[in-house]
């Protein structure tokens, strides 16, 4: 039989395939439902949530760079309560895993929001300690192993769902941060968030982004992301969700070979709304072509 099983299990949560829409690029799914069947996705990581609603940063919020984009959205979101009452019920109609992506300005804010989300009908919590676009909080929590350990430990107390910690690439040594998150009780890691970057218009002499700096994503960062996923996979025992520049099935497979059990697709959604579904199909074809039966046959399969 040629039966292919694309399921992956992340800390007891079953995803029908390893492809998750990445936070901040898929909103709360509604907009994409016109273009694809949300039931097909392994999971959806929703737009980064904060305890209170946020308007985000001044425009422009996007700059195209070579094979990448800088964004400086700055966590515009309706807040955790509005998410739970208005968006979550919509998402729960679909047979896909719902991952709540959480950011905050302070330990307390993280904890209160985590508690609220934990009591709601989410499937996993993704702790975003790596947003480069907010002044306080976000990235500063993910910048050192110590701060990553601390915030993970705090949030762990309020989170009874699987806790995924999303790491920043803007660190000296990803292995140390990965270990710290694992030691603090993370059930899984996701990486990478965006790289800090900047773009300038030589004619106006001004930064292109209203917020001056932004986060770099897209194909440009894939080599860096792949390296960090590979490093993290060699360091921790918990599952890793890889991302950074995944545009097609081959890209996704590279991340899995490097050690990821699942992947997230971000910037690709902005370029092609159907990207996630196309990537799922690509992975299936790769498995067929190579006689692979489960995703386990790919994950960590790098030969070197």
């Amino acid at each position, binding site marked *: 039989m040629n039966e292919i099983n694309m399921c992956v299990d992340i800390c007891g949560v079953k995803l029908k395939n390893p492809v998750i829409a990445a936070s901040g690029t898929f*909103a709360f799914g509604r907009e994409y439902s016109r273009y694809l069947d949300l039931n097909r996705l392994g999971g959806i990581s929703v737009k980064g949530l904060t305890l209170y609603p946020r308007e985000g940063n001044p*425009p422009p919020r*996007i700059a*195209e760079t070579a094979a990448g*984009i800088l964004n400086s*959205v700055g966590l515009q979101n309706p807040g955790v309560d509005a998410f739970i009452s208005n968006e979550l019920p919509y998402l729960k109609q679909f047979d896909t895993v719902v991952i709540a992506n959480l950011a905050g300005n302070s330990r307390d804010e993280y904890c209160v929001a985590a508690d609220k989300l934990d009591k709601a009908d989410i499937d996993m919590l993704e702790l975003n300690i790596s947003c480069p676009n907010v002044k306080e909080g976000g990235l500063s929590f993910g910048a050192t192993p110590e701060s990553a350990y601390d915030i993970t430990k705090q949030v762990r107390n309020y989170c009874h769902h699987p806790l995924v910690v999303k790491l920043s690439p803007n660190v000296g040594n990803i292995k140390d941060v990965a270990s710290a998150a694992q030691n603090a009780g993370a059930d899984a890691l996701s990486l990478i968030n965006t790289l800090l970057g900047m773009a300038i218009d030589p004619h106006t002499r001004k930064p292109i982004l209203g917020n001056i700096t932004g986060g770099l994503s897209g194909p440009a960062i894939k080599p860096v992301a792949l390296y960090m996923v590979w490093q993290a996979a060699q360091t921790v025992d918990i599952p890793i969700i890889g991302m950074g520049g995944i545009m097609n099935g081959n890209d996704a497979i590279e991340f899995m070979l490097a050690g990821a059990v699942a992947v997230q697709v971000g910037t690709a*959604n*902005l370029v092609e*709304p159907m990207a996630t579904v196309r990537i799922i199909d690509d992975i299936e074809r790769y498995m067929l072509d190579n006689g692979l039966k489960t995703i386990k046959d790919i994950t960590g399969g790098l030969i070197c």
Partner: protein
Amino acid sequence: MTGIVYSNDLISPSIYKMGIQLGDTAESIQAGQFAHVRCGQSYDPLLRRPISVCQIDAENGIIYITYQVKGKGTRWLAEQAIGSKLDILCPLGNSFEAVMPADINEIWLVGGGIGVFPLQLLAQQYKDKADIVSILGFRSDEFKPLWQPFEQYSKRVIIATEDGSYGYEGLVTDELILALRAHKPQIIAGCGPSKMLKSLACIAEQYDVPCVVSLEERMGCGIGACLVCNCKIKSDDEWHYRRVCTDGPVFWSHEVSFDE
């Protein structure tokens, strides 16, 4: 969706007009809506480019876009031969019709430079319902092919050029003020550089004429999901960021905060 390039011609300095076969979709498009076009399979350029639909040939399922060659994306577009396939999301955005009241029978179109393109389709679609006056500004008479389409749809066309090479010398907003002194239309629809739109909003408020404007902002997804295309929209004492790609690009001018 896949469009087929039907024509692609240089019509003014660095400005091309492209016909794209889109089939049945063509006739459903409203003025103000845009096409979000992937410029090649390469990752450089990576993002789609938003371009207004400026004319529709519903019978043959063809839409027209007119675009200025500025950077990598539009340069790629200019190189496409007839018959090439284009990866397009269309129509996106709300449209003038969605914002304006239903009973419009008199409309002034105020546009500057490459901002005239969404107004061109508005003129085409309102020509039988409303009296149209087009007040348009350009750098020079080299851009004549950009205002010519307005002539067949408008009761009157007023042109201002910065260098005085055609029509009145000066800004389009100066001509608007002169015209408003004589008569106040039911509604004004504007599109152009944000400095011009800011003046337009002031003038419309001063003369107490309802005014809708179509905004431009750098975009990502174009479908409302990524929140990068925001503009500040006032309501009562508050303001909120709204998405130009789906809440707009057309807004009431008095709601838009132009201060940035």
